[in-house]
């Protein structure tokens, strides 16, 4: 019963989306718009929760449940299994779209009805496009007959708490940019005489999209770190790049919007960025789900999906960019910037972000371009990204330290220097102290540490000075970036790896730690069996620090082996241990990583998220005051 209702509800939401598209062309708030928007929200909620219900009760008459679930799977993963596959994830995507659609609808007031109607029209078009895609090529409610006794199981590598919430957070990010896109289209379509402060409408959505994209990407990294067992947390995979590119443009957008707000300059640039940010999200989806690129994360492939998404992208992109080409003239102005000013620093930030984004884009599609023109196959990997992205990021971060304290218009250089003097001093002292203490020199390590403390000390000082004109959200988010850089530098420059074969009672050393292999046990989990190693970790003074218990799991349903890493974390380092294969006679292959400062990556990301939430709140309040 549930799958039929779900399917019906999905078709209903397609109907509501199409009706919203046509009704909003009337350019005013009407009963029909209200019905469409609320109908769309409720019908997509129903179909989403009916799919979730089918997963939770293990209804194996549904193909999607049969292919991705199993009765023995823990409840949490039955729930998250709803969006842990291509079809279900599209349903989640649609749900988030309709929620944003509803928020836009709530912004209606007497003055802005044309503007909001135009926004809702575009939003309805996008939503209808995605629903159509889902029902035509990836319907999650397809029935399998006869009903199967049990499911094929869920890839155990996806059974991880971080991965359970990673997609919803990420989708809020991606889809948030759809609202930004629609607002940008509405702005371009406005007639000259309407004085709508479009940037104030756009800002909360940009902040929301960016904030959730940040935390979504961070949870993806957490998953890679804890679950993949490769000792790292970022691999420059096409799917990771697909989320990183909109993030970079979102970062640029977030900053240039402030310039629009204060100086009314960069308006056409902001409109272009907001179109591109969403288009890149859709192109990313296309790359990942069409099978045109192969990636570790690749979803089930089907060429017809590729054609559909490409056609949809062509319509969205073609329409919006041509509209931009024709209509954005009125938002051009010729004001020139002083380099040494807040708007100057924001402009440089924007240029650098766009350059990084272009480099990542080039790296991602370069193999495709080469193949299209020469028929050769090449692959682009980590070395390319490290040598392009890192050098561009360095000046961006340097400027990020002083940008907030520069003044608008032409700034006083000597005054600014006085302002930054304390943080320059603080950075120098901390860096010197760290390197004297650890005696471990590497150029890129020094650069990273200097940049991290440059950002941290600047923002801590601003925080204590309590400057009225700077937003708390910004300071907290910038502080988070500083902590993030600290973690990234530590874990990538000073990581140590040891691969060794160990028998029970053998011991080994990594850095200042002594590790003894005590015993190995067979244990049984809810849907797996495991071999669990027991390792005691001692410090120099023979005090026990921790017990590490890495596992080698076997999931009988999907017939998969996975390794479960064991990690001991403190503020300075992670001890990261993976149990490889082996037997009692020859011992086991064990991989041990000493990963410095990893926890600061997670703390940094959470701090940025917090800053984003604060800023979201204050921007929403500003918008409320406006209406």
């Amino acid at each position, binding site marked *: 019963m549930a799958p039929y209702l779900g399917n019906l509800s999905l078709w209903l939401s397609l109907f509501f989306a199409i009706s919203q598209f046509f009704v909003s062309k009337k350019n005013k708030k009407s009963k029909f718009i209200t019905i469409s928007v609320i109908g769309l929200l409720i019908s997509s909620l129903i179909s989403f929760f009916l799919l979730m219900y089918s997963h939770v009760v293990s209804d194996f008459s549904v193909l999607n449940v049969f292919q991705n679930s199993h009765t023995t799977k823990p409840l949490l993963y039955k729930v998250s299994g709803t969006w842990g596959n291509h079809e279900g994830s599209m349903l989640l995507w649609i749900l988030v779209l309709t929620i944003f659609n509803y928020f836009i609808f709530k912004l209606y007031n007497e003055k802005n009805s044309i503007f909001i109607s135009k926004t809702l029209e575009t939003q309805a078009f996008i939503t209808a496009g995605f629903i159509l895609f889902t029902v035509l090529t990836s319907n999650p409610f397809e029935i399998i007959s006869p009903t199967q006794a049990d499911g094929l199981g869920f890839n155990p590598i996806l059974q991880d708490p971080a991965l359970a919430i990673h997609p919803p957070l990420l989708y809020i990010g991606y889809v948030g940019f759809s609202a930004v896109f629609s607002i940008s289209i509405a702005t371009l379509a406005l007639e000259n005489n309407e004085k709508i402060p479009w940037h104030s409408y756009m800002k909360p959505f940009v902040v929301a999209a960016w904030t959730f994209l940040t935390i979504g990407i961070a949870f993806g990294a957490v998953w890679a770190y804890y679950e993949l067992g490769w000792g790292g947390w970022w691999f420059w995979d096409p799917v990771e790049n697909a989320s990183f590119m909109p993030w970079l443009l979102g970062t640029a957008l977030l900053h240039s919007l402030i310039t629009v707000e204060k100086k009314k300059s960069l308006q056409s640039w902001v409109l272009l960025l907001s179109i591109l940010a969403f288009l890149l999200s859709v192109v990313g989806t296309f790359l990942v789900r069409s099978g045109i690129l192969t990636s570790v994360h690749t979803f089930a492939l089907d060429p017809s999906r590729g054609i559909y998404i490409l056609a949809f992208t062509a319509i969205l992109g073609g329409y919006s960019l041509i509209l931009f080409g024709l209509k954005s003239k009125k938002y051009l102005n010729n004001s020139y910037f002083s380099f040494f000013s807040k708007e100057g620093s924001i402009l440089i930030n924007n240029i650098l972000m766009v350059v990084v984004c272009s480099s990542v884009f080039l790296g991602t599609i370069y193999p495709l371009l080469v193949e299209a023109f020469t028929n050769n196959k090449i*692959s682009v990997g980590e070395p390319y990204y490290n040598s392009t992205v890192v050098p561009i990021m360095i000046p961006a971060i340097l400027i990020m330290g002083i940008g907030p304290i520069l003044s608008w218009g032409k700034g006083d250089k000597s005054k600014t220097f006085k302002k930054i003097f304390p943080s320059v001093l603080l950075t120098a002292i901390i860096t010197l102290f760290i390197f004297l203490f650890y005696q471990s020199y590497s150029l890129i390590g020094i650069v990273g540490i200097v940049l991290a403390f440059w950002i941290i000390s600047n923002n801590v000082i601003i925080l204590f000075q309590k400057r009225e004109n700077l937003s708390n959200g910004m300071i907290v988010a910038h502080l988070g970036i500083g902590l993030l850089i600290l973690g990234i530098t530590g874990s990538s420059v000073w990581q140590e790896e040891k691969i060794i074969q160990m028998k029970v009672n053998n011991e080994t050393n990594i850095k200042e730690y002594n590790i003894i292999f005590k015993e190995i046990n067979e244990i049984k989990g809810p849907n797996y069996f495991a071999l669990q190693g027991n390792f005691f970790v001692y410090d120099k003074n023979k005090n026990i620090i921790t017990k590490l218990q890495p596992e080698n799991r076997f999931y009988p349903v999907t017939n998969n082996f996975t390794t479960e890493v064991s990690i001991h974390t403190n503020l300075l380092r992670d001890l990261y241990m993976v149990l490889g294969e082996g037997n009692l006679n020859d011992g086991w292959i064990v991989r041990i990583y000493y990963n410095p400062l990893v926890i600061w990556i997670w703390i940094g990301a959470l701090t940025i998220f917090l800053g984003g939430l604060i800023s979201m709140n204050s921007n929403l309040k500003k918008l409320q005051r406006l209406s």
Partner: protein
Amino acid sequence: MRKQLLILPSIFFLLILLIFFYLLIIDRNPSELPSTLLNKNVPKFETESLLKEKKFVSSDVFGKEIKLVNFFATWCKPCRDEHNYIKRFSNQEGIEVIGINYKDNSQKAIGWLKELGNPYSNIAVDKNGRIAIDWGVYGIPETFIVNSKGIIKYRHVGPVTKKIYKKINLIINEIE
């Protein structure tokens, strides 16, 4: 002049879409990936051998004659599909097929080979997928051609089909 520039993004976008479209419609196989190890020595590794008492030591196995290296597992459906082609290779003179049993249950693998026949002259056990990482394996099945000097000459991702079977034979003849 500046106003005309505003149309540039749409032109650029159109070009990229055209390339994507071209790639979607041409007969291409995204699974035919070049290996970063192409023309390099096989990665060194040591592990258990599935059927032999002796350890599997890569430096003892590679470097004498042409070897076909096939990553497989019992849980992988396409591996079953390609098995007949792998057997045909092993019946050809001058080719030895080395299996790498990827993230699998050894008992099951032995049963699987008894059922379908064993084309492999030696099988390395890669229980946690570490060897596969060193070889840059994306997903199984994957097949590599290693020449008599122990250098990787070709990589195929995905099951061996009739077309690929012929192609691999051609490459092997070239190398010889």
